[in-house]
């Protein structure tokens, strides 16, 4: 993938300069994981480690969330940001969760990321394949020599089809992604096709559709933890006494409670990165709930800039004295 290589070279060069000039102490980017379809979040601190950095259409995880706590919080950090990741960072800045002074934002023009869950519509076991991106086509080849070709947009994350700013805005520096000719036409109205389809269905059909899919939920909370803007220091569903969420997974009411409530909690903050959809091991389309709420907010109250309300780190915990649960 020569084009990807070009992007990679530029990225590594840039980060090397940043680390050598001591502008930053650490850089958060993507590295190779143990599966070719998943790049992993990687933090490097030494200039000689920049060769481990990479970026392509499988760089799915969101990095901004790593700046919120732990050892990166008070360091001078550089971070690689796709459009959605930058939107999350902007929200953190508004909520005083991060110190912008300490952060060097290195944007990268994004042409969407793939969703392994989408791939499983075409392939029995997507992780068995290596992907070769060639313009608008993707070739998947397994080690047994099997080759399947599909359109890039067929395996793109559903959220990338409606992303209104894949190239991050107001960043300290921007890396032009060389492989951007595969950029898929983006829906201007920002509404997923599946939402429009679902809206046509009858009440009973919708209910059945969601119940059937939500009942697959194992309550592993991958969707919650992978979400960059699910930021409560103490999640309502982790409260023990009283326990707001039953541990039983056979009560569909509990699944509805979890997913619908989470949708209401984060839909207005949602930056449309789609990581929740990609993180779900059961391929549950709960993100449609978020998207529908977003669409309703826009229609009823006009376009909103970002969150409807902000949550600040020094807010009183709603479950503690003085809070308003």
């Amino acid at each position, binding site marked *: 993938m020569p084009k990807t290589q070009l992007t990679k070279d530029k990225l590594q060069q840039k980060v090397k300069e940043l680390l050598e000039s001591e502008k930053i102490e650490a850089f958060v980017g993507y590295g190779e994981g143990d599966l070719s379809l998943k790049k*992993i979040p990687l933090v490097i601190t030494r200039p000689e480690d920049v060769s481990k950095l990479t970026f392509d259409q499988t760089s799915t995880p969101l990095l901004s969330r790593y700046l919120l706590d732990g050892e990166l919080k008070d360091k001078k950090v550089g971070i690689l940001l796709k459009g959605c990741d930058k939107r999350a960072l902007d929200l953190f800045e508004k909520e005083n969760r991060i110190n912008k002074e300490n952060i060097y934002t290195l944007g990268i023009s994004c042409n969407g990321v793939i969703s392994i869950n989408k791939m499983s519509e075409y392939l029995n076991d997507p992780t*068995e394949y290596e992907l070769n991106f060639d313009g608008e086509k993707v070739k998947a080849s397994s080690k047994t020599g099997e080759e399947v070709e599909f359109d890039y947009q067929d395996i793109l994350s559903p959220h990338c089809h409606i992303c209104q700013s894949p190239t991050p805005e107001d960043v300290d520096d921007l890396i032009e992604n060389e492989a951007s000719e595969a950029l898929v036409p983006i829906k201007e109205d920002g509404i997923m096709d599946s939402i429009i389809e679902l809206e046509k269905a009858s009440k009973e059909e919708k209910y059945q559709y969601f119940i059937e899919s939500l009942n697959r939920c*194992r309550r*592993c909370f991958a969707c919650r933890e992978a979400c960059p803007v699910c930021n409560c220091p103490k999640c309502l569903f982790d409260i023990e006494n009283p326990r707001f969420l039953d*541990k039983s997974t056979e009560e569909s009411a509990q699944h509805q409670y979890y997913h619908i409530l989470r949708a209401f909690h984060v839909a207005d903050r949602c930056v449309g990165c789609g990581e929740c959809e990609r993180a779900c091991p059961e391929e549950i389309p709960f993100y449609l709930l978020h998207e529908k709420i977003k669409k309703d907010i826009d229609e009823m109250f006009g376009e909103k800039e970002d969150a409807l309300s902000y949550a600040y780190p020094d807010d009183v915990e709603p479950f503690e004295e003085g809070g308003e649960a």
Partner: protein
Amino acid sequence: MKLTDIKKVLEEAFEKNEKLEEKYNICDGEKENIKSFFFPQTEKYLEFKRTDKGTEFFPVNNGLVNDSDGTGSDETDGAKEKINVVVRAKPCSVEALEVFDYVFLSEPVDPLYKEKREKTIIISSSCRELKNSCFCTSVGIDPYKPVGGDVRIDDSTGGVVGVTPKGKDFLEEIFEADESKKSEIQKLEVDQESDLEKGNVKTSTEREAEKDLANRLKDKLDNMQDSKLWDELSLRCLGCGVCTYYCPSCHCFDVCDYYKKDTGSRYRAWDSCMFSEFTSMAGGHNPRPTKKDRIKNRFYHKFNYLPKLYEKLGCVGCGKCLVHCPVGISPLTLLREMGEIEDEDKSISTS
């Protein structure tokens, strides 16, 4: 006919014979997480009711209330009465069950697990397709050697043999119902085109040296308390429970009560050591407050505590955690760090 067709052979036999159909239920050990057959995610075992005389308790023996239709009704479709036949139980899945047996069948025996375990018929076979995400050979498992099971598909002859009395009876029952299945089952072929011939995998002899693997890893970990690895992993880890829920050997559960006005039930449900409140105690103390404590514990449990207790690893190298983890964490990183897998490229620099 290929080995993988055992499922088809059984399905045909059941289709022809209503009695078998009513008695057995075929489960796919490759598609389903094998532990859920013996250890469902939610298992009810006690119901209580407030009456005029005080509180009455009613043990529930079979645990599951089927709510697949989402109506919340307690109507079962009869599936729970059937005997599960698990086909395509690969060496990694069966090895993982050993960990379960150790935990649930050691004194005090867990009756819920025991009942399910005794009822289920496991048809174990070798694994012919090592996936990109598999690393069973790194944790001392031979994917070509079927282990355990009640019925085993014999790789040397390609035939299907009953191993335990339960398995033998099951085969007899099939043959009785449908004579033609006997020759079909004896003729299942071993797929010769395997990774073994391609030289991708250690042979059994090479693996003899792996026998002390559990002990070796245990000792190595004893000196890795302060490794940088835990910092790197805990920084990356999101703290969800996906690795534990999809792991075939993870077996932690939580006991919960659910009650409405005058009735209630006690059930157990899967729990995950990766959740922040997993070790939280009454009174609010939490001995594992940070993500680092938790991820370290998870790996120590699998590669140090279990080997110490039981001389067996708590990891079978199936790669489920690797596939499902949103940020690609798996024991591979640990094995690399311990020098068990050579891969310069991906090891963490501990400068």
